[in-house]
């Protein structure tokens, strides 16, 4: 046991001696949270649009004012003819053009209906459909108000956003960042640090020492386990105090879920290190097999339901997917074990599989 403790201390020293890596490891979650919290936004704010007003009456002015007043749009330009649209789009200076044809107001009053055209730069389809939806809702609101004032019946929608009243994106990126960081530290760092011992030949020294292979592996894992837990706590605290992400469920269940995922990631790291011979190989496997799926196939950024069937099936095998489901259920919805035991079982199953594969692959002899 003493030997083992000594070995763990050696591993800690090893890690702490490289301050640059340590700084990066703690900077990544903080910067990532700040980026997601303050910089990256899917919300549309001040989107630059242009208006091509061939009618120039009081009503078109009113609609333009309403568009501006929502805060979604900035009216960057007033165009004079349709030829300018293409040039502006190609320069990338505007995203949408709203066109009022001649006699807009007169038609609306005389016929009760007037045409309005929207041209959106759909080279960014997401933005284009959102802008279109927002513009339409402003225009429809305008007409509804007018009708309502004149005593025409309307249907209104009343809505409530459950679990996230203010639609804060923090509810998504705090759990997501957690998955990414735990994966990064636990799996990527472990796999690289073990392969480094192999590459530099010091693994041999460890294997001929009185330490048993299992002790070597556990000793290697311990510092990263500690780091992961520290990072997990840091992320939760920042999430709770800075971004006001609630922790509605039981703290014990939350901690259990996180530690289970950390163990899962650590075992993945060990498994990769039993396959890879060099750090470079370990890095590439980790990046392809861990980072991308964590970001893309876990439901962190992109909803799984929208993906093609094949990818949905693939995502079943991604540990972060189950972690995120469990984490969000506990943190945001405040659900208990009765709701999430399935997710935890899947994770335990994966953990067992990774451990079995690692043990079978682990070589204690030179080739």
């Amino acid at each position, binding site marked *: 046991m003493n030997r083992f403790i000594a070995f763990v201390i050696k591993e800690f020293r090893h890690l702490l001696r490289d301050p640059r890596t340590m700084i990066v490891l703690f900077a990544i979650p903080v*910067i990532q949270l700040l*980026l997601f919290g*303050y*910089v*990256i*936004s*899917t919300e549309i704010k001040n*989107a630059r649009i242009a208006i091509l007003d061939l009618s120039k009456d009081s009503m078109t002015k009113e609609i333009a004012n309403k568009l501006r007043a929502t805060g979604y749009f900035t009216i960057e330009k007033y165009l004079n003819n349709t030829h300018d649209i293409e040039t502006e*789009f*190609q320069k*990338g200076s505007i995203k949408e053009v709203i066109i009022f044809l001649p006699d807009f107001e007169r038609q609306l009053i005389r016929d*009760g*209906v*007037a*045409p309005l*055209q929207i*041209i*959106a*730069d*759909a*080279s*960014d*389809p997401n*933005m284009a*459909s959102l802008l279109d*939806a927002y513009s*339409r*809702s402003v225009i*429809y609101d305008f*007409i509804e108000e007018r*009708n*309502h004032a004149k*005593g*025409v*019946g*309307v*249907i*209104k*929608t009343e*809505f409530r*956003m*459950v679990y*996230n*009243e203010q*639609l804060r994106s923090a509810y998504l990126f705090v759990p997501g960042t957690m998955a990414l960081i735990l994966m990064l530290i636990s799996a990527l760092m472990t796999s*690289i*640090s073990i392969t480094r011992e192999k590459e530099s030949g010091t693994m041999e020294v460890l294997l001929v020492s009185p330490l048993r292979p299992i002790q070597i592996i556990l000793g290697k894992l311990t510092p990263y386990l500690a780091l992961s837990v520290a990072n997990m706590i840091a992320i939760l605290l920042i999430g709770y105090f800075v971004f006001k992400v609630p922790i509605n469920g039981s703290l014990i269940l939350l901690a259990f879920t996180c530690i289970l995922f950390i163990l899962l990631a650590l075992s993945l790291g060990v498994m990769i290190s039993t396959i890879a011979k060099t*750090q*470079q190989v370990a*890095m*590439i496997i980790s990046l*392809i097999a861990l980072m*991308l799926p964590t970001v*893309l196939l876990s439901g962190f950024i*992109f909803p799984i*339901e*929208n993906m093609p069937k094949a*990818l949905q099936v693939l995502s079943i095998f991604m540990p972060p997917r189950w972690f995120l489901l469990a984490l*969000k259920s506990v943190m945001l*919805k405040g659900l208990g074990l009765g709701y999430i035991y399935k997710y935890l079982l899947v994770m335990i199953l994966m953990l067992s599989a990774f451990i079995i594969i690692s043990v079978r692959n682990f070589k204690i002899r030179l080739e």
Partner: protein
Amino acid sequence: MRTILYLIQKEFIQIARDKFMGRAILLMPLIQMIILVYAATFEIKEVQMLIVDRDGSETSIELIRKFSASRFFRIDVLPLSQSEIDESIKRSKYDVAMVIPSGFEEKFQNLQTGEVQLLIDAVNGMAAELSLAYCRAIVADYNKELVVEMMGPNIPSASSIQVSTNFWYNPLLDYKIYMAPGILVILITAIGWFMAGMNLVREKETGTIEQINVSPIQKYQFIAGKMIPFLIIGLADLVFGLILAKVLYHVPFEGSLITLFVFATVYLIAVLGIGLFISTVSNTQQQVLFISFFFVMVFVLMSGLFTSPDNMPRWGQVINWFNPLAYFIKVIRMVLLKGSSLTDIKAEIFQMLLYGLLVNALAIWRYRKVS
């Protein structure tokens, strides 16, 4: 010049000998172009929606029909109680629940406001916002129809505006032709940056850099010898990726490919310069990996690949001046999808050129032949 050519030859021999790396250079683009492009979509295809119709009137049934007709919603109409509705949202069985209260039609016909209630699971705020926007659009459309139907277009008090939308450059709002070029940029960047960065520092770790240090090779020759092979690999991967983009996703090539390759070359020189600079200040591959990973992650998130940089606060946009990815992602989409020409992107080319000169000068300056 001959010296540089020998150095390039040496690099290629080394890369070719490493079977794993050789495969990674080819496989990475393939995997990424296939999986990422399909996975990275915000497009809402199927929102599971529960409708509880407590009115059962003609108006409410017509409204349900309007929702069913939309391709965004998969509708179940069930007579559930409020607590059952809440439970089904809690269990994530439905993303959206709409309740049409009894007396809905009556209220509406009495020229009042008929209200429907929407309950939206907003754990994913953006999906929730989009669902709401679609719901409102459907209701608004229906409103417009009802006004015309009930009042008749000739009654001057009621009016409507006929909105029609043209989506230029991508009329079907195909998300893949938007993502594929962006993913391609990430790919070329990651390969170039990481490979160049790890390569130089590996020479340090294995000690082979000493042999170069005692040779008459000049500092700039050494950096150029490290840069050019990866520039060639990067451009080759771009060709490969563009072919994949065309074949798999039918990405249009509206603009000139020459324009694109001119920019790509300038861009790669800058990106490789960053990778080389990081490796001149690092001692181990692990350090390079972490510093690079950190910057690449920040750069990718801010690049506008997933979210438009226009929505960022001012200071975020200022940080983005130093983000090479943001330039290339913007340019590749402009050129491929909109057919922008060299003059449209000349500002970006000059900015990248300046960037490249600066980082490479830094890399040459930081590379020490004495340890």
